[in-house]
């Protein structure tokens, strides 16, 4: 793998390799000094054109745990604010010789362009409404830890599918791992042609939710009401909110965050025993470490970084001095 641009570019074996690598990194997180030297001396640029708390902090911490040098650029207050084009920004940042660029953009295909314009490995941290592949990978990881395999599991993705890059990446990833996926939401928020495009089922009501092993709720933004996609948030919540009445004890609950409490999820299920929401954030860190490792080492440590005969970073030499 040279870049991580879209789930559609991956094979199942790619996903499985990243999952295994992430499991190795989970062990690092349990150490006193949660840091390995794998990417020492390498520069990673985080370029975020949209506000983001968990994705940007997760990538930043993942890079730091691998001992990379990280530069984080946020659009607000940067030259981007002053009208610099993406192409020019990439050329400028290219002067630092980054080995990887993590980009979040409001526009589909932005990461593909960066990959074309730069020598760095590019990670799509969300491009418009298109894809958010690292989210899908961390969600697969989270579910595998709970369920072992996703094979033939039934997953319902509920909410604003039309405007959700998470929905697109996750349907593709869940399908690739053998799950059956249903997307569910008001007809105004289900894209025309989605069943054909993503090979999933479509439901407009929660009636059949009982069958689901996993309920994945999407964020519902309040501006959808102004844009007349839904008549009111109240009516949306009444029809589509996942609450303790609709969620059975055997069903797992996921959400990409940030949650609108009382809109797509009721407070009691967010904090309830079915909820994997906090686990998703934990998974995000190790899966992003695995993604950086995969792209920057080609899945293999550099010769000078090998520890003994081991080919496995899950057991790299720990750093001797605290950083």
């Amino acid at each position, binding site marked *: 793998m040279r870049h991580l641009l879209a789930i*559609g570019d991956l094979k199942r074996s790619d996903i499985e390799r990243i999952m295994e690598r992430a499991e190795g990194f989970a062990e690092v997180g349990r150490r006193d000094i949660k840091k390995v030297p794998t990417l020492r001396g390498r520069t990673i640029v985080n370029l975020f054109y949209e506000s983001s708390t968990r994705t940007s902090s997760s990538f930043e911490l993942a890079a730091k745990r691998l001992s990379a040098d990280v530069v984080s650029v946020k659009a607000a207050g940067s030259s981007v604010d002053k009208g610099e*084009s*993406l*192409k020019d920004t990439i050329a400028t940042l290219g002067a630092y010789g980054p080995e990887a660029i993590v980009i979040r*953009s*409001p*526009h*589909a*295909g*932005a990461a*593909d*362009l960066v990959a074309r314009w730069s020598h760095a490995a590019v990670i799509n941290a969300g*491009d*418009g*409404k*298109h*894809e958010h592949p690292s989210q899908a990978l961390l969600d697969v990881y989270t579910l595998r830890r709970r369920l072992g395999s996703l094979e033939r599991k039934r997953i319902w993705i509920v909410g604003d599918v039309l*405007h*959700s*890059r998470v929905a*697109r990446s996750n349907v593709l990833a869940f399908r690739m791992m053998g799950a059956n996926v249903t997307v569910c939401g008001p007809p105004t928020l289900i*894209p*025309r*042609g*989605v069943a*054909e*495009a*993503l090979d999933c089922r479509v439901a407009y009501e929660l009636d059949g939710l009982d069958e689901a092993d996993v309920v994945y709720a999407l964020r519902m933004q309040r*501006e959808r009401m*102004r*844009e*007349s996609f839904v008549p009111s948030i109240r009516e949306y919540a009444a029809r589509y909110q996942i609450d303790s009445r609709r969620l059975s004890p055997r069903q797992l609950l996921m959400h990409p965050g940030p949650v609108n409490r009382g809109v797509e999820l009721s407070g009691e299920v967010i904090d309830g025993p079915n909820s994997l929401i906090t686990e998703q954030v934990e998974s995000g860190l190790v899966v992003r470490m695995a993604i950086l490792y995969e792209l920057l080492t080609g899945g293999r440590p550099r010769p000078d970084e090998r520890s003994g005969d081991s080919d496995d970073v899950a057991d790299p030499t720990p750093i001797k001095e605290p950083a």
Partner: protein
Amino acid sequence: MSPTRAISSLDWRGAGGRGGELVLARAGVLDPRAGIDGTYDVVIRDGEIAALADPGTAEGSGEVIDAEGKRVFPAFFDPHVHLREPGDEDEEDVETGTRAAAAGGYCGLLAMANTSPPVDSASDILALRERASEDGSVPAGFLGCVTRGLKGRELTEMVDLRDAGAVGFSDDGLPIANARLMRRALQYQRLVDANIALHEEDHDLSRPAGAHAPHLGGVMHEGAVSAALGLAGVPSVAESTMIARDAALAAYEDARIHVQHLSAQESVEAVATAKEAGVRITCEATPHHLALTDEEVRSLDSRFKMNPPLRSEHDRQALIEGLRSGVIDCIATDHAPHAAEEKEVPFEEAAMGVTGLETAVAVLHTELVLSGVLELGLVVERMSGGAAPFGFEPPSLAVGSEASAVLFDPDAEWEAGADGWESRSENSCFAGRKLRGRVLMTVVAGQVVYRQRSFAMGVA
């Protein structure tokens, strides 16, 4: 409707000239409109087709070109071109745009009025006509706006514009959203006797988030591909419902309309229904809508972004069928040059539009004729079918006609854009594509306005 006028009477550098004597020997001559299909020596003299002589018999005092194995067609007419002058001369101007047209085999074009500022006064028309008469490689006609400043609020001084030389009216780039204003324009058409060309798009449907989020406006065809990419879609009905509205208004006012760049199956149906009901309606389709589908957009390559968008395969098939049945009267390129920096951005941010003059006939020949989908004669006929709706006499190869012709090599293989472009812009959705069939020479009213470079060297 007034009698038709000659395309060469439009403004261009060669106006009034007649050219030297030229013989295209042993050429495969094809002019379906005139019922000509055979091998002849085409003799061009005094600006006219002087003779279609038996092959190898013509003797001329001027240049004789061995055209064996080559084809001669009536030159093409493009009713839909953006010359970008005034205001965006970094992208195109009258000189480069008409040069691109000459290279594409065109003997005339109509330029749209959505320049900056828009062409909405008589003085704008006069200035452009002067430019064309100085630097136009081929005759160019200029349309005036239907509404002042393209704002869709009040009519332009259409009579004044017509008197200054506007050959038609269009707010192309934008629909005339307001039905009352559309009706007024059609009523007023009686005074100007000029066609109104319509960009049919209901913004309420093509901009799904409405005015609250104009940046979420549709950027591609709504369907499975847009669902996969998460791009906001423009549904086919955004076009067809407007066509149906305007056809009904045209029928009611006994007016004449020309629908631009049909893209969807529903639109072909809407025009067919109107034609059957006797509405005075004509329409066009572009080479890119006839050759490509929304599958191209999966690459998120901004060269495949235009308005209306590339649609599904079944829409493309409907356009081809419409061309075959005659519902679609003509092929127009909607040649829309853009600066590189307007396209070197993410797909959603990129400007809409593609160039097309220099590739049109080669694309249709490669994709539709050689694949056996359409007859060559039909394509040739529709390539100049855009003249009649605007009151121009289509070029003819019949003896005695004004000599506007294309010399075409059906076997030439070339890569679009590999030798550069005559246009100032490079945003062709066919760039890099291997094409078969190439314009070698374009003649307008007896004057050679273009010679393909390698061909020109070959005969030197």
